[in-house]
């Protein structure tokens, strides 16, 4: 059996509103693809991803494994991240009180890997790296 990796630019994910982004990720992962991107979701979005994953769990899809590494921001990059974070929070707040479901939010600089739990057996995380152990069992 083969294992497929999709390396997706964070720009592709950023142009999608949050709900569509999560759908995009989960559709790929549910198909057995391991997705790698050069962006990191906010903790709130990652919780949404977990919530949506739980809604989709079935006999053939037990869930996902996620690992991310955020690039520590310094100086102007840090300031830019803070501004964009505040912008996202304001957008999310107004979306929630106006009943709007989907909001467009930015990703932070870093690396994220999301894959199907049926193939990814273990992710060993360190502060600045992670290693992934995947296993595909042959069908008999």
């Amino acid at each position, binding site marked *: 059996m083969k294992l497929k990796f999709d390396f997706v630019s964070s720009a592709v994910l950023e142009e999608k509103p949050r709900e569509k982004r999560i759908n995009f990720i989960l559709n790929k992962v549910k198909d057995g693809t391991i997705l790698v991107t050069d962006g990191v979701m*906010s*903790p*709130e979005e*990652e*919780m949404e991803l*977990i*919530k949506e*994953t*739980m*809604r989709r*769990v079935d*006999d053939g899809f*037990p*869930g*996902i*494994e*996620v*690992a*991310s590494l955020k690039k520590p921001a310094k100086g102007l990059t840090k300031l830019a991240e803070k501004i964009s974070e505040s912008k996202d*929070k304001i957008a*999310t*707040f107004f979306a*929630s*009180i106006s009943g709007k479901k989907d909001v467009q939010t930015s990703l932070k600089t870093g690396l994220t890997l999301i894959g199907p*739990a*049926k193939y990814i057996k273990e*992710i*060993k*995380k*360190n*502060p600045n790296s992670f290693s992934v152990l995947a296993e595909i069992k042959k069908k008999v």
Partner: protein
Amino acid sequence: MNFKSFLSLLYRIFGLKRNLKIGLYGETGVGKTTLANRISLDWTGEEIGKVTGIPHETRKVQKKEKIEIKVGKKKLILTILDMPGLSTKVDYRSFLKYGLSKKEARKRAREATDGVIEAIKWLSNVDAVLAVMDATRDPLTQVNITLLGNLEARKIPVIIVANKIDKKGAKPELIREAFPTYPVVEISALKGKNMDSLYEAIAKYVRGG
């Protein structure tokens, strides 16, 4: 952040709330229910939930209201919310080794996924969180990181509880190293070890009372 959590944040900032909702969050099998039972037993003499050792035993939020704890001169009235374990995966096959039938295992898996969703939804309604971690496991998991990141973003006070320090191989220092900016209390909920330190930390880090 929705309007409800915004109001809750205001209450916390100004210390207006008297009855504080404390959520026990963490991965499955870290001892959340054992801790909830210990806190409840210590102050009310009653337990909250069942502990069996099978993963995802708590699949619905279990609540114990009006737990009055006294630490020195400070008095807090707490509602303890024992949350279902957080997880990014639930495989019904993992329950079969505990002697459950396929039908029971599938039902349990369905309920477990609903439980995770319910626990996440409750994040908007808690005033403080005890993030429970098993001191015998690697603490640097994505679930723990995501949980702490969410609490920080929502400005919810959090105490990390390094549980199971009575077990051989427990390394609570790894939890302190992994999350150096958070208060960490080392306990054994099962043996009731160091619970006073936990109550002191609750009185110190949780506003209100």
